[in-house]
């Protein structure tokens, strides 16, 4: 177990490092001098030069990379260009909103996708099964921002059931949850489809296994066989899939935050790009990468906790 955790942690560090390197290259390759971009067209050469020195842009490239790299690992992601606030603070301030959105998306996709997939597998070949199949493909195919816009138009604008914008009153949990319903649905709906398909496929496979035949030969109730004996196994690949899928949900979150004018990391990055606030862009992307890698790790640990075979190979 310890061995496995160390290995996984090493891998996580490597992934984040590569992400840092790519980010650094990206900033370096973006046309235009960051200092002039930040200061605008009316800045004098002297002002630009001063900012360049302050931002370390006069140093050789490998020194710049090292500064960026070592800074990032110690939590120093630089300062926001105009206000001078530490980027990490700015990002962490927005992070809870995005995490709530992702959590909401996962809740939707798991709460609907798993029962749907199970149900389709048990009623294999029936009309219901085919309907689930078609709906799954449909929700997977529709981009999340389209879902977001339609959800907004239908449930907020026309029906007025749910609030259209914002994240709800700070400190008022109920209000915040109500504000979370539509955006998280937009983030998670496609995943309902993925999960339903995945659960259906792995349920069908598991239900063919000889231990399920044994369970039937002992006259166990069908419900126990489906949910305790089969689903416990069929769920495992789905959790791994979700771990990877969080990356995609993070990108859907950007659209959801823009459409619903919610605070969050996605909105932060979007605004930062528009105002060319590059340190915030890189900082936010880096934090997101770390979150992604961590959640992936969590997914693997959950699989380990549920599957004794994996657990003992740790």
């Amino acid at each position: 177990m310890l061995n496995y955790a160390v290995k996984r942690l090493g891998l996580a560090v490597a992934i984040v490092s590569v992400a840092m390197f790519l980010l650094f290259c990206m900033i370096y390759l973006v046309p235009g001098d960051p200092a002039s971009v930040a200061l605008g067209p009316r800045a004098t050469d002297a002002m630009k030069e001063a900012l360049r020195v302050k931002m370390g842009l006069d140093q050789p490239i490998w020194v710049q990379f090292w500064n960026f790299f070592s800074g990032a690992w110690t939590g120093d992601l630089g300062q926001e260009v105009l206000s001078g606030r530490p980027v990490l603070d700015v990002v962490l301030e927005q992070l809870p909103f995005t995490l709530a959105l992702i959590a909401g998306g996962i809740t939707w996709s798991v709460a609907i996708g798993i029962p749907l997939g199970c149900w389709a597998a048990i009623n294999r070949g029936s009309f219901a099964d085919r309907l689930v199949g078609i709906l799954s493909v449909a929700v997977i195919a529709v981009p999340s921002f389209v879902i977001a816009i339609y959800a907004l138009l239908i449930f907020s604008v026309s029906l007025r059931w749910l609030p259209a914008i914002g994240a709800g009153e700070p400190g008022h949990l109920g209000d915040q949850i109500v504000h979370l319903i539509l955006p998280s649905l937009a983030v998670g709906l496609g995943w309902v489809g993925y999960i339903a398909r995945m659960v259906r496929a792995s349920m069908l496979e598991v239900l063919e296994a000889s231990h399920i035949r044994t369970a039937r030969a002992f006259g166990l109730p069908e419900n126990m066989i489906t949910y305790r004996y089969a689903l416990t196994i069929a769920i495992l690949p789905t959790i791994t899939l979700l771990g990877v899928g969080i990356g995609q949900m993070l990108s859907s979150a950007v659209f959801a935050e823009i459409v619903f004018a919610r605070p969050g990391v996605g909105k932060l990055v979007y605004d930062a790009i528009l105002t060319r606030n590059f340190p915030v862009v890189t900082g936010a992307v880096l934090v997101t990468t770390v979150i992604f890698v961590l959640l992936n790790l969590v997914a693997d640990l959950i699989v380990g906790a549920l599957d004794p075979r994996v657990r003992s190979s740790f």
Partner: protein
Amino acid sequence: MTTLSVSGLNVWFSTEDGPLHALKDVTFDIPERRIVGIVGESGCGKSTLINAILGLLADNGEIRNGEILFEGQSDLTKLTRREMQDLRGPRISTVFQDPMGALNPVLSVGEQMINIQYRSGQSKAEKAARAIEMLKLVRIPDADSALNRYPHQFSGGMKQRIAIAMSLMMEPALLIADEPTTALDATLEVATIELLQDLQEQIGCSVMFISHHLGVIAELCQDVVVMYAGEVVERGTVRDVFHDPRHPYTRRLLECDPARQTERTRVLPTIPGEIPDLRHRPEGCVFAPRCLERHPGCDMAQSERMVAPGHAARCNLVDQSAAEGESA
């Protein structure tokens, strides 16, 4: 009393290439407290027979006619799903061929053994105690802690013993064992057979033991049913059938048994030819295409003939060869 009495059982599967007649007029008895062996080549319908008895035929399978009388009263072919489910486990239990895959990999052995007692109405502690008792009986070392372990933590032989413990835990009237030892090596096979024999005596159940290993059948069983292409071609006591086989197929099967080879040969004799396609059964005897003793009478339908009390063979030649045997 007979524990299980199968008569005139016919099972059909619908397949893409038409209906497949997998079991044809299968008839045999499993008397109380006896071990009955079922032998036959791969594909002769042994698993289909088990599934028909257990009510677990695949969705495309169907019992067309016939009767499976259990303990002289209930016809298993007529029970509802629910009634059948209630018999499986407590009254009729099964050990399957593949010990590696027979246990659920993500549930502890204890949970699985406790779950199958769900009808007993006992407390969880009592069920656990019963499980430990059974594990001790099949000689699983450290039985108490075995409950908390998972199937992959046991060897193949131990898993098969756990499966046996599970199937006998509720003291069924009938134990069905589908090649329970084929996946084990020779020494384990002997140990497992002895264990089964012991437990059968203790519990006093009947056993339907499927195997294609004639030596094991001779060792363990009192009666034997020889199957070919979904039909019972010969049945009787092990002594009668093995010493005085009346159906040409049984004779060929016995000749081909490696244990019976007196001379060391490089090539094991096998019966030439293959089981016919069960979608197109021959009009007459199913074994005729491979039979060395073929004659014109084989093109007619064969009926089962009693050759001695409790010894029957499905071959029209039986009377004749018996007559020849007497005159010779």
